[in-house]
């Protein structure tokens, strides 16, 4: 049995792209978990999408062994994603650890997710091992960044290690510091089994693979276990650790991290944060678990061809098998026919799902503009959750319309404070405070509606800060606001999929911009197309798309026929991919016009 004294469990956390996966490469190489021959950059980023985009999307746990001062230590480390959409993966992995290696890119300094993730680690009571990374780079500025770490997080310069994931410099020291500083796991090995489910994935051959951290007792192969939340019992069929390939072992004892399989068919039966215990000798109390990540961004997905509806349903079900944070539900739109309302953690998450469906499943999809979830308190005293603008009741029935609010931290160069203030002000933000990291870098904190940030705030931030600003946010609750549903009528017919929820003070401007954009996206027709924006029955903006006046091929003689036929057929094929609203053809772009916020 592995003595917990020689186990260290830690996650690697950082802002996006600060080098977590690359440092993991070095840790794996240095400890011999992978050979030079099997090595490839960011070896733990194993999903196709991760490799393509060069970012980590899922957490990746791995077990390595390291000799230190004549003793062999088992190190269970977890590489985590840096992108804000996947922040829940960081929380999950931290709950399985006693320590966190906090990386800071020595060229970029402290960024928004550095702060956010460091606070997460502090909340979990973890020991932080701060590391200045990428010090091989000529433009690294370790002293200045160390000062930023002090002002932002109270981390002192003498605690900070210096390393490079690229050259391997300082990696031994990182391993040593982890062993010296991170506490060994505690827990009673003789108590009944109590293990935390911190992740899972679906394997089409083996069923659900459950990732666990043993908090008390021992998990054995063949053991009868119980998932405490649902009460379901299973027999452990296989048990093992990721090294990094799944490697079977006979048991996991207190303090250890690994996985087990128990012929669980349905991933929905395994709740992340659940407690695994011995069915015959159960523990008295379950672990506290996690808050489930709630999808915050919703949009409709419709097959362009209505016959693809069932295929889309099957593909969504497959995706969901491995991604419980993604939700979907059938819905019907008058304009678009049968489709699904899908919920995502953020825009990147949405983009990834859409890309998988279109690319891997070869589906032509119409996607409606993303919206956030709203709450409506009706006059009758019910609270409705609104994930689709179509479901907003008549104004007369609404007592209070509430929207999700986030606390958002911007980390920006001090010289851009003015521009950022203007940007946030336009988006109904409430200023909270400013913290100086150094003379030139500040953290600005605001509270603002989630709806104002999901689509393009990040791009806008990058543009006002010339690429140097970063942001991080978390939802803090719902607040009442003067919101209305903005409808669009295409040729006098309301198109439900084009409705949006906007603040009343913005409604007219948004309506005008939206119609202008629609006018650009919709081809001219054989008749004049009238576009209107309306709140209830009040028309607030109008645009016309002039009819085609003259469009006729002058010459069509013997030599022209083939060429013309091809041309006409091509144009006709383009029309097929559009959605018909009455007699008007709407291209996919029209449904996203709703997002346009610029004049």
């Amino acid at each position, binding site marked *: 049995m592995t003595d917990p004294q020689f186990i260290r469990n830690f996650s690697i956390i950082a802002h996006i792209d600060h080098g977590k996966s690359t440092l993991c490469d070095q840790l794996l190489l240095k400890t011999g978990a992978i050979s030079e021959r099997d090595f490839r950059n960011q070896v733990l980023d194993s999903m196709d999408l991760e490799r393509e985009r060069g970012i980590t999307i899922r957490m990746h746990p791995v077990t390595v062994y390291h000799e230190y001062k004549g003793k062999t230590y088992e190190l269970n480390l977890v590489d985590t994603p840096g992108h804000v959409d996947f922040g829940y993966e960081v929380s999950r992995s931290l709950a399985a650890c006693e320590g966190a290696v906090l990386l800071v890119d020595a060229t970029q300094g402290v960024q928004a997710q550095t702060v956010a993730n460091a606070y997460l680690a502090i909340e979990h009571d973890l020991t932080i091992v701060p590391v200045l990374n990428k010090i091989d780079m000529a433009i690294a500025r370790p002293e200045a960044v160390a000062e930023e770490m002090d002002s932002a997080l109270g981390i002192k310069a003498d605690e900070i290690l210096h390393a490079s994931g690229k050259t391997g410099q300082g990696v031994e020291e990182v391993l040593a510091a982890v062993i010296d500083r991170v506490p060994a796991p505690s827990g009673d090995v003789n108590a009944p089994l109590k293990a935390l489910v911190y992740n899972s994935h679906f394997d089409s051959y083996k069923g659900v693979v459950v990732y666990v951290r043993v908090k008390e007792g021992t998990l054995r192969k063949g053991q009868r276990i119980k998932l405490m939340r649902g009460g379901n019992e299973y027999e452990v069929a296989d048990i093992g650790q990721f090294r990094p390939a799944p490697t079977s072992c006979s048991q996991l004892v207190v303090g250890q991290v690994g996985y087990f399989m128990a012929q669980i068919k349905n991933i929905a039966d395994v709740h992340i944060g659940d407690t695994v215990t011995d069915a015959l000798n159960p523990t008295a109390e379950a672990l506290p678990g996690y808050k489930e990540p709630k999808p915050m961004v919703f949009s409709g997905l419709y097959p362009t061809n209505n016959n693809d509806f069932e295929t889309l349903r099957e593909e969504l079900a497959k995706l969901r098998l491995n991604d419980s944070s993604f939700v979907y539900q059938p819905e019907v739109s008058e304009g678009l026919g049968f489709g699904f309302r899908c919920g995502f953690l953020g825009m990147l998450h949405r983009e990834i799902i859409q890309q998988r469906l279109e690319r891997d499943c070869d589906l032509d999809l119409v996607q409606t503009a993303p919206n956030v979830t709203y709450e409506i308190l009706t006059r009758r005293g019910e609270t409705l959750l609104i994930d689709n603008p179509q479901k907003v009741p008549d104004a007369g029935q609404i007592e209070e319309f509430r929207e999700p609010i986030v606390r958002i931290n911007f980390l920006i160069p001090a010289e851009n404070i003015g521009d950022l203030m203007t940007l946030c002000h336009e988006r109904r933000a409430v200023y909270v405070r400013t913290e100086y990291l150094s003379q030139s870098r500040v953290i600005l904190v605001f509270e603002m509606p989630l709806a104002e940030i999901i689509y393009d705030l990040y791009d806008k931030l990058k543009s006002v800060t010339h690429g140097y600003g970063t942001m991080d946010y978390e939802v803090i609750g719902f607040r009442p606001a003067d919101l209305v549903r903005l409808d669009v009528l295409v040729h006098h017919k309301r198109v439900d999929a084009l409705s949006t929820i906007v603040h009343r003070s913005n409604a007219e401007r948004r309506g005008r911009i939206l119609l202008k954009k629609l006018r650009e996206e919709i081809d001219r*027709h*054989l*008749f004049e197309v009238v576009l209107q924006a309306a709140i209830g029955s009040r028309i607030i903006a109008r645009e016309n798309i002039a009819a*085609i*006046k*003259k*469009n*006729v*091929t*002058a*010459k*069509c*003689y*013997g*030599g022209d*026929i*083939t060429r013309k*036929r091809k041309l*006409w*057929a091509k*144009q*006709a094929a383009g*029309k097929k991919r559009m959605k018909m609203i009455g*007699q008007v053809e709407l291209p996919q772009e029209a449904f996203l016009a709703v997002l346009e916020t610029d004049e």
Partner: protein
Amino acid sequence: MHVPFCAHHCGYCDFAVVAGRDELIDRYLDALEAELARLGEAASVETLFLGGGTPTHLAPEQLDRLLATLARWLPLHPQGEFTVEANPDTLSDDKVAVLARWGVNRVSLGAQSFASATLAVLERAHQPEAIAPAVQRVRRAGLMVSLDLIFGVPGQSLQDWRADLLQALSLQPDHLSTYGLTYEKGTPLWKQRRRGQLIPLSEADELTMYELAMDLLGERGFEHYEISNFAFSGRRSRHNQVYWANHAYHGFGLGAARYVHGVRSVNTRDLDGYLRKALAGESVTRASEQLAPEERARETLVVQLRRSDGIERAAFTEQTGFVLDELIGTRLTTLVEQGFLHDDGQHVCLTRRGKCVADAVIERLL
């Protein structure tokens, strides 16, 4: 039959033409003869169309030789139609005499405009003054005359266009073609437009011009029998109606297209290649295609729609094996309701409004 030689390359023209290579004419006639000889035996035809290029750019002897070759391989039916395209400045009396001698009974004259400014934008070689005498020469020889006109030329006003139409009418042609100017990709005019050196007329102006042609020519008794073609009763171009019925036709010469036994093919557009291959007795076909029955039916549908007679349901089914209404379904009803198509139960044809936006209508029927 295609003769690619021209005195000068006009700014809007994307036909298979060459200017300034007249030394190749004799070899070209040899090559044409060789291509015709691949027929094996003479094929009697009902209509002949000698176009280009400018067939009348040839010297009288060359023209004579060409027509003799044609008569040998493609003898014309006694009631046949034989059209030759000509430019006003190329039609001398002796050339007209050659044409008449070989049974040409129709001349299609590329007048394009009677305004020097318009001709200049089009980069045409002839002067307006050359048109009337050319028409008279053809008339005197007893041949029918068709005039080509172009509208929608940059700088052309509605008044200019009316004047062009009236002058053309004053010459009493049997047939008139009015073409909306098309900026064909790669032509000098297209390049000028792309660089902004030339500002095209607005769609609304083009429309008014087209409508003026329809009104004026209609008043004078012309039948608007195809999108761009008008004729007095009984004087329609029989040859061109074959194209719009989607029937079969032969084609010989540089870049020529043919539709024989359900196969469409075109000859190479490269003059040197054409000469070499034809003279070596090889095929000069560059590409060919055979459509699936349904595609062919749809193609028939859209070309026939260009005719004022439109599509005759029974004849369409006989020709294509498809029932019109099954091919286009409810879209027909919609377009009839919107006033772009007319349906009398037997025929479906474009309305006047429909003619102006024929391409958009066609897209909806494919």
